[in-house]
């Protein structure tokens, strides 16, 4: 990415969380490359992807952190929750254990992000309806009870993948517009960039959106 005028006006940070093998990396790949990567290696630590989208005529760059699903890696991935504007929480509709673990993922997400972080629940592998182990209705109910947005998706066919990422962005954008998300707050997970503006002090690379000197 060359320096110079920015062709987007916001950066939103996302994290993708959920048990190992639910398809987090495949969802990211489907969203950024529009392809299904069947032979995706498991994620050890954290991976990263970006894509520019448009919401209400504004170009927004999504910076997406894909985290390892195995529990022990949370020691390493936790620091990425901080400053996330959106969290995609994924389970596998064909494996109930991955659904049962959602409450612990949710606790982590709630404790480690800010109150305005938009949490989107994704039931992945909707193409495997024949092997379904979690019904749509119960997941929908879980989402409603916990105030989460929800869709069933397939990283394989691409079904609803685009929507999940975009709806999250729309919600974040709405929160900015109605003032419920304060961009100046440390760890809002959003950076505003005047498009075509010069590189200003706050634009010292896209390094740490929220590099707050006292946020240690």
């Amino acid at each position: 990415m060359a320096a110079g005028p920015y062709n987007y006006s916001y950066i939103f940070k996302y994290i993708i969380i959920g048990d190992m093998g639910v398809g987090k990396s495949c969802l990211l790949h489907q969203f950024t490359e529009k392809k299904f990567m069947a032979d995706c290696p498991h994620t050890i630590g954290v991976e990263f992807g970006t894509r520019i989208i448009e919401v209400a005529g504004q170009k927004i760059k999504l910076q997406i952190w894909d985290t390892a699903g195995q529990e022990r890696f949370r020691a390493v991935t936790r620091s990425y929750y901080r400053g996330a504007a959106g969290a995609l929480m994924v389970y596998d509709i064909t494996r109930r254990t991955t659904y049962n673990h959602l409450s612990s993922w949710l606790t982590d997400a709630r404790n480690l992000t800010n109150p305005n972080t938009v949490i989107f629940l994704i039931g992945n592998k909707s193409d495997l309806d024949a092997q379904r182990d979690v019904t749509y209705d119960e997941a929908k109910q879980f989402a409603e009870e916990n105030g989460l947005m929800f869709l069933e998706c397939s990283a394989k066919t691409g079904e609803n993948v685009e929507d999940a990422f975009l709806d999250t962005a729309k919600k974040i954008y709405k929160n900015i517009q109605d003032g419920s998300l304060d961009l100046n707050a440390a760890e809002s997970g959003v950076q505003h960039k005047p498009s075509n503006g010069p590189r200003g002090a706050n634009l010292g690379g896209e390094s740490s959106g929220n590099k707050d000197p006292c946020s240690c």
Partner: protein
Amino acid sequence: MIFSFRFKGMTNIDDNYGFACSKDFQDFYEEYKTVLAKRQGRWETNILNDDKAKSEKILKRFVRKGIPPEIRKEYWLKISGAEDQQKEHPNGYSTWKQEEKDSKLQIEVDKDLERTYPENKYFRNGNQEEFLGKLKNVLLVLGHRNPDIGYCQGFNFVAANLLLTVGDEEKVYWLMQCLIDKILPKDYYAKDMLALQVEQQVLSTLVLKKMPKIGKHLQRFDINYALFSTKWFICLFCDVLPIETANRVFDCLFNEGNKILVRVGLALVKLLGPDLLKADSFPDVISQFKKVEDDKRSLNCHEFMIAVFKDSGSLSKKDLEKLRLECLKTVGGS
């Protein structure tokens, strides 16, 4: 964009370990064959056919230049101490293999089996039963025998590299057990991942000290070392470096111990240094780190290993232990 280079520029000729190899590797291998032949000769004259006990210093020098592939597996077992451990439990492995395993362990291992080197001919194309079967046994016995570690994602790549090199599953198990018991820092694979974070902190301290320009550049973009080095340290550079290079690292790991890990980390940072310095945004820096997995310079294992020992300069065991203790204070508090 997402950064994956696993299948880029590969031809169909394989590298003896079952990976299709790139034109770059073939070119390098032509040269490396001469080096290997020379090393083989030197080993035969000076180590294998010479009854005089060799000083640690001489052996170290020889091992750093690469254990010849023909004798590598016996040597690994001998110098690591794995062979001695195995002798203490002659029927251990076969017994443990039969024992009932924890169900969570089985699920975790199963999930990663199919995701182990799908591009390698031994793990696919009709061979998979044999190789994946062995891999599964090793990982299950390892998790079973080390209940406080269980299965750590990444073990599959370590075990797979060792299997491709050593062949025998029981020996692979003992090599890994020996790594855990004797070679790696204490509690290296503990579930709290504290030792891993210490190693990352050590790396970041040494980068700042030995390559301040690169260190400061990374600081400027607020690059957390966990971001790029978690896989390096967890996988002991398997599936990060090409297998022959990873094996050269194993040579030193089994012979000299865990000091090699941070040294290899330093060499990788140094190797990427010019590209890192050119990168001027956070995503750009991260993408440079991803390049290591398909980099010509790490394919040339011989030069890479020379750089490993040159770049990090002298690093005594005592100094490293001291640094680790200091770093433990930094990461342990959080």
